[in-house]
Structure formats: structure tokens, C-alpha cells
């Protein structure tokens, strides 16, 4: 192991060094062991880019995952962050407990459609309603990759897979499930749309609470038939962006990264004072309107659209930990003096008994 990793916050006049004093390399992970061309790799790269560009300190992030191809990917980014590859479908509970240890930390969870929509549906729904402070990415390809090609719960009805035959069931919509479980940030994107993935990631990182990103990430090995919902071709043809999105870091006075085209512009202020700016392609779509979000998802379902963009955001709900009125010092830095009641308390306790 090297001893020469730079501490975050260092300064240098190198244009490749961000405000945290780090280069992009400081955000990278181990080489990917997924298939060449896998959408998940592209997402890992956008996670690296988003964190680098927002000058996020790697030690500020904790990575979580369950089991599956998607859940392997936390090793492919942020070598310098703590990570926990847990059990199939149980990433949310591990993240919930771990994030209590230090309320200043942000979680990034990477899961898949098998991990979240099947075995982990219970924990998925409950982590939404608890508003845990984490970005929850579902790399959604409609198929079980690591076990070599079984149908997942997000696969569309009628999909045919080599050894599985035809899917007789209707699919589960990750975004719909998140929204009905009171998630406070719900977005969908497509791994092939790198710019949108990155901007949504930045917005999700700025969100104080649970931020769900359902990213259609085609499986090049087991589910990339041209007519399949989770394929590159289908997604490219049916992608229906809600709006263009730009993320503006806090304290950055310049509002737009690049010139916007015509259309209504709506700013959404995030909890950390940063702003996301949405350029609506649809008639004044308002992502803070829950009713509207449900409607647009239902429309998309009926019209066979892959609707992408920020579907819903609510910035004034307290995150889980802030509801617990914890001390300012991270809990995992407390010592015996903070934690063990004073000696005099033992008499009080015995007096409470009969």
C-alpha cells in the first residue's frame, strides 16, 4: 500500500485539481470486472465524475451495496471511501444503521432490479419512508446477470429470454414504488445518457434525504435484444427526457453552466443551498408536484415511453437522522464519559425497582 495519498483540502495550482485538492484519480476505484460495454461501468464513471466535479471529499462518502452485478460496482469507484457489500436485498438496513454513526456522512448505495425490486422490495420501501440520507441507485437491466440470465421483476411482460421462456408477469416500476413510499427525490435516467446521469447524480448528492435514481442500464450479455425495454436500442428510441438538467454547486454565483435553449426554466433549491435548474421540455412540468409525478409516470407506462429526468423532489422533509436530535459530535466519536451513566445513577436505578 502507498503512504502518499493526499489529504483532502490541499492546494495546488494544477488545473486538474478540484476545490477539495484532489485529482480525478483520487475518486477512482479498482478496475471493473463486469462485462465490456456494461451500462454499470458507465454509471460508475459518472459517479466518479460527479464527485470529482462537486469536489466531494471521498472520506465524506460511504458506499453500500447488496448482491448482484450492480452491487459489485462500488469497488469500481471511490477507493478512498468506506464500503460495505452486504447481503442480497438488505443494503438499505445496513446503510440505515451505519449512517447513524456519523451524521455528516452521505451514503451512496448501488443496487439492481433483482436486489431492490424482488428480494429487497421490503427494505427498499422502508428506506424510502425513513428518508435515509443517501443516494440510492438502481442499475436496472431487467435481468439477473450474475446468475446468467433470469427474468427480474422489472422485466416487461412478454420478454423472452434464452433459458427462461416468456415473462408472464407485469413489471414493477422502481420510480413508482419509490414515490408511493414517500421518497423525497425520484429520478430516472439511462446509462447511455452520460450527461444526464451525471447531472442527476450531482442533484441527488445535494439532496438531504433519500434520492432514488432508477438508471436503465442494459445488460449487453443477457438482455440486449433490440425490442427489449432495457436494451440500448429500445431505450435510445423511446427515451423521453422530461427536461434538461444542470446542477449548480453551492456558493457558485454563476447560475448556468452553459447557455440554455428556449423554454421554461425552473430552479429547485436543494437543502445545502445548491440549486438544480430544470429546463422543461414538457408543458411546465413541476417536479415538486407529487400528483403530477404520478400522472406522468402513468402516461409514460401507457405510451411505452422511457421517461427520464427528475420526476419528483421534495426538499423540506427532515432526513432520518435529523429527527433523532443527536449530539453534534458524530456518535462514533463519543467515549465512555458520554455513554455510560454516572456512578450515582445505579442507586437511582435500584430505587426504581421494587
Amino acid at each position: 500500500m502507498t503512504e502518499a495519498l493526499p489529504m483532502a483540502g490541499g492546494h495546488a495550482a494544477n488545473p486538474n485539481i478540484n476545490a477539495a485538492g484532489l485529482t480525478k484519480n483520487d475518486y477512482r476505484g479498482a478496475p471493473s470486472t463486469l462485462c465490456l460495454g456494461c451500462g454499470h461501468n458507465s454509471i460508475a464513471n459518472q459517479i466518479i465524475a460527479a464527485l470529482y466535479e462537486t469536489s466531494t471529499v471521498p472520506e465524506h462518502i460511504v458506499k453500500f451495496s447488496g448482491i448482484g452485478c450492480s452491487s459489485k460496482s462500488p469497488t469500481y469507484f471511490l477507493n478512498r471511501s468506506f464500503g460495505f457489500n452486504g447481503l442480497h436485498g438488505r443494503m438499505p438496513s445496513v446503510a440505515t444503521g451505519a449512517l447513524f454513526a456519523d451524521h455528516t456522512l452521505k451514503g451512496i448505495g448501488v443496487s439492481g432490479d433483482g436486489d431492490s425490486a424482488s428480494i429487497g422490495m421490503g427494505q427498499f420501501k422502508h428506506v424510502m419512508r425513513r428518508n435515509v440520507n443517501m443516494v440510492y441507485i438502481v442499475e436496472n437491466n431487467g435481468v439477473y446477470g450474475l446468475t446468467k440470465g433470469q427474468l427480474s421483476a422489472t422485466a416487461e411482460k412478454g420478454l423472452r429470454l434464452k433459458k427462461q421462456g416468456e415473462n408472464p408477469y407485469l413489471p414493477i416500476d422502481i420510480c413508482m414504488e419509490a414515490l408511493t413510499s414517500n421518497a423525497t427525490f425520484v429520478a430516472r435516467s439511462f446509462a447511455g445518457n452520460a450527461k444526464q446521469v451525471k447531472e442527476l447524480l450531482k442533484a441527488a448528492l445535494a439532496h438531504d434525504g433519500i434520492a432514488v435514481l432508477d438508471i436503465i442500464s442494459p445488460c449487453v450479455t443477457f438482455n440486449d435484444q433490440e425490442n427489449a425495454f432495457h436494451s440500448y436500442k429500445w431505450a435510445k428510441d423511446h427515451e423521453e427526457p422530461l427536461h434538461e438538467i444542470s446542477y449548480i454547486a453551492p456558493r457558485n454565483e454563476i447560475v448556468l453552466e452553459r447557455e440554455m435553449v428556449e423554454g421554461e426554466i425552473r430552479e429547485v433549491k436543494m437543502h445545502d443551498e445548491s440549486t438544480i435548474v430544470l429546463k422543461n421540455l414538457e408543458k411546465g412540468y413541476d417536479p415538486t408536484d407529487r400528483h403530477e409525478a404520478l400522472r406522468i409516470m402513468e402516461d409514460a407506462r401507457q405510451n411505452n415511453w422511457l421517461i427520464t429526468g427528475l420526476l419528483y423532489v421534495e426538499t423540506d422533509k427532515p432526513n432520518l437522522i435529523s429527527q433523532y436530535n443527536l449530539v453534534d459530535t458524530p456518535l462514533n466519536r463519543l467515549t465512555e464519559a458520554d455513554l455510560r451513566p454516572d456512578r450515582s445513577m445505579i442507586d437511582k436505578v435500584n430505587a426504581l425497582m421494587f
Partner: protein
Amino acid sequence: MNKIVNDFSITVGTKNGSGSSTANNTILRSIFKMGIPVSGKNLFPSNIQGLPTWYTIRVNKDGFVARREEHDIVIALNPDSFARDLASVRTGGAFFYADDIKQPVTRADIAAYPMPVKTIVKADANIPAEYRDLVSNMVYVGVLAQLINMDMEKVLAALTFHFKGKQKPIDMNFGAVKAGAEWAKANLEKKDPFYLEPMHKTDGLIMADGNTAAALGTIFGGVQFVGWYPITPATSIAEGLNEYLPQLRKREDGKHTYAVVQAEDELAALGMCVGAGWAGLRAMTSTSGPGVSLMTEFAGLAYYAEIPVVIWNVQRIGPSTGLPTRTTQGDLTFTHFIGHGDSTSIMMLPGDVYECFEFGWKALDVAERIQTPVFVMSDLDMGMNQWMSKPFEYPDTPMDRGKVFTEKELEEIKGNWGRYLDVDGDGIGYRTFPGNKHPMSSYFTRGTGHDPYAKYSEESSVYIENMQRLTRKQETAKQYVPAPVFHNTKGATVGIIAYGSTEAAILEAQYQLEKEHGIKSDFMRIRATPFTKEVDKFLAKYDQIFVVEMNRDGQMNQILLTEYPQFAANFKSVAYGDGLPASAKWVREGILAKYKKPAAKKAVSKKTAPAKKVAQKKAATKSKAKKK
């Protein structure tokens, strides 16, 4: 008729949900405050209202407070169990019954006392109609008090405690007790031999249930995170934490140093605790067998990922609609090997309410020291019933947070470390916690496949080394888990091994075996696995060792057989589990059924004993050689 003083049982038969628990606890606490050793056990069905339920009290001047199978005094208030209750009274016993139950009292060999429970309550103008049914239970307390000389001042003290000093309910209930007593004084003639007389044997003791003690002990252990899911009989641990954490960990700024989260199920409950324990919090969960079943996958992961977490299992019979409100020691082997693949867990086995408190804080120390899940195996009898206890004592050792590197230590070693490097030779590596700002602090956690630097590896040699290190950790754990306690008899010829809530029954059986059968025994109560060196020594001393436990299969016996095959011929399993708390009767009878009288005369056997040992050793060596 000879008086029987401070040595009898009282059984109250009521309907579940009729509010009799206040009355029963009042009887128990009054006797306790009279200075007489006493225990009370609630034998209840899985039901909120309507099914028959019993509360059994054991009064014993010598301190034997295990459940007594003989029913000396029976109080019958439930028409549905009336016939059964009447039949259960021992000859010469006493039978109190609500006189509105119109069923024949057919026995002449007992003293029968009708009680106009409902009439007395109705006559009291101070009791509003809606409280009559609840308060009517207090009438039998009064009638019983009058006949067995229960001290009315102590009854008042018990009610004052129960109603937390609120005058109105105290007056109303105590009024009903007095009315019952006055009625009995005027109308009943004493025909049974049972009396209470004040003693001083409970001076300085407290009365508490194991779940409350566990919650309190956990708080003194500095618990920071609790994830839990409701389940009988463990729920009152989490409720105790909710009640006492705000009182005992109060800070001037009003902020909290802990979080209690009710999870969506037991998988999530332990998952949260594993996350919290991994990130550096003292984490615990409480559950019962069905919950542990669901927690199994996480428990196995925590073993391999080496994450400290404490799991209280208040054992009950199950699964599903089994006997969920009945006590057992049925989860021992399941927990010992919990998780898939090779795994051996640490179990702590509290034997009474005092130890529930003590192990509450100690388990957190052991978990962080060994970096592994620690299971504390309580049971329904200990967890939910009121027990006499020594007062709880402040922890006598500082918190042991185990091996942790903060930024400071990492700086000193220039970030050169590996999460699973066994630098101290005890199998235990150093941990870092998320939030550590040193750039070399982080590592990636997963199950089995990792090298000493927490890097992914599927290499056979790496796997083997890791497994061997985990075994070394188990060896190290022996220094940190509680040693057994001994109750020895001079000249003992046999050994008894037990654990958990059965101690009172064993002690009484030990006494009876010596007095009535001339069998002298040494009793070792095991308090943890892995077994400590004291266990090794004890086993080498006797050629008959009775392993007594409340289950069918003799689970502790199975574990002992695995760990000590050289003594296999000496172990005699006395296992019995019927859902009821242990009684001296079944312990005694169980041991007698398997006891073998020494064949030779005492003097001879003494002389030959050393020779015999040598022979055994030789035989053991021989068989080893043969295998090779």
C-alpha cells in the same frame, strides 16, 4: 393441624386479559416486602383476552423459589378452568373460588373458601362501575391476605409502587383489598395450615424482571444503536430501553447519544445493527427464536465480516403458532452454529435478573473486543417474570472498545495497516470507522473472500488463513467471556451442569438428592460459550455428569459432546421441555432416572480412581492411533 409457615405455593387461575396481573404482582410483592423469599411466574397463553391463564407463586423460607409442581393454595376465578383448578389442589390444600361460578365443589380433602368477589366490589360506592371488573381482582388479594396473615402495610406499599404513587387508583384498589379482608375476617373460618410470618431474608434485595434488567444493563454499557422488531417475549427489552434511555442518558443540551429504531422486520433490525456496529456504534437488538431465524443470514455475515453486535434472544417455544408464550432453552445449538459455512458463535448465558443487567453491559464489551456477534440467551421465565435479585451494581471495569485506529494512530503508523492483519497474534485485527478523515483509513467490507488488507480474494490459501484466524479469535474469546459459577458440596461424587434460568430448580434438587437419596453433587452453571478453562477442569473430576436443560434434545449436552469427546461416556443428558419454568421435581427425577450407583465400595473406588484415569487416557491415545 400443624402450621405450615412460609413454605407453600399459590396458584391463581384467571382469564387472560381480566386484569389479574396487578393483583398477582401485589401478592408477590407483599410477600417479598415481608422479608420472605418468593417468586412469581405467569403461565399465560398466546392470547389477549379470554383464554385460561395461571399465575403461580412460590413462597419458601429456605430460598428455594423454583416453580413448585404441587398446588398448595389455588385461587379459582375462571369458570372455564374451574374443574381443572379444583382437581389440582393437593390433599390438605386450600381452594379459594369466586362464588359466582356455579360449579360443584366436590372435594372433602381440602379447605374450600367461596369469595363473593362481585358482591363486595358492587357494595363499594368508591368504585365506578367501569372499574368493577378490574378491581374485583383485588378482593381475592384481601381474602387471601386475611387467611394467610399477609401484612396490609406491605400490600399498600406494593400498590403504591404499582400505581407510581397515584392516589386515586391506590385508594380504589386498596379499598377493595380491605373490603375482601374484612369480609373474610367476618365470614370465613381458617381451615388450612398455610401462614406467612415476617422474616428478613429479602432485606436489601430488589425485585425486577430480566428484560428490564437487560435494558438497564445495556444502557450502562453505553448502547448507541438499537434496531428491533416486536416479538413476545423480548419486546419489553426495547420498551425498557425506550423508557430508561431518556432518563439515564439525559444531557443538559437535551440531545441524544443513542438511537432506537423499530425496524420493518428482524432482518432489517439486525441489518441496521450490523451497519451501526460496523461504523463504530455499540449496537444491540433483542428478539426471540423466530426473529433469530430471520437474522441468521446477517449473523453469519457479521461473523465473517467481523462486526460487533449484541443479540438478545429471550427464548420461547416456536415457530409460528407454536407455544410463543412458553419458556424454553431451545435455541442453543441453533445459535452455537448460526450462519452458513463454518461458524461458531459466542453465547452468554445469564442465570438470573442480576446477570441480565451485568451481561447487558458486558456483552457489548465482549462484542467489540472480539469483533463478532454476541448472543445473550435469556428466556421467557427470566425475561418476563419478577425475580428477587441483588441490587444491580455499577460496571466494575471501564468500557472495552476493542482495537480501533483513529486518525491519530493511523498517522503514527503512516497509514500502514490492514483490517484483518493479525498483528497481535490473537486473531483480532484493528478497525477503523467511517468518518475517519485519514486518507488511508477506509477499507471495503464483504463476507469471506478477503485478504488481510480487506482486498477481494478467492485464493485458497488466503481463505484458509482467514478461517484459521477466525478460529484463533474464538480461542481468544475464552479470556473475555464470563466463567462458570459453582455450587459445590463436600464429598460430591457426581457433577451437574446447567445454565440460565434453571439454577433455582437445580439448587433445590441438589439439596433433595443429598437429603433424600444421599447423592452429593457439585453444580457448575455455565455462563458462556466458548467454554472457559474452569469447564475443562470440572469435567475431568466426575464420571457422572448430569447436563440439565429445558429442551428435548439436550442441546448443551450436544455442544459438550462436540467440544469434549474424551468425556462423552460421562455425560448424562437430563433434558425436559414442556414450556413451563423448571421445577426441582423434574430435575431430581431426571437425574435419578440416569444415576448409576458406584459399583465398588467407596474406599476401593477412591484408590482405583487415579489408575482408572490413566487407563482412560491410554484408551484415548489408542483410539487416536487407530484412526491414523
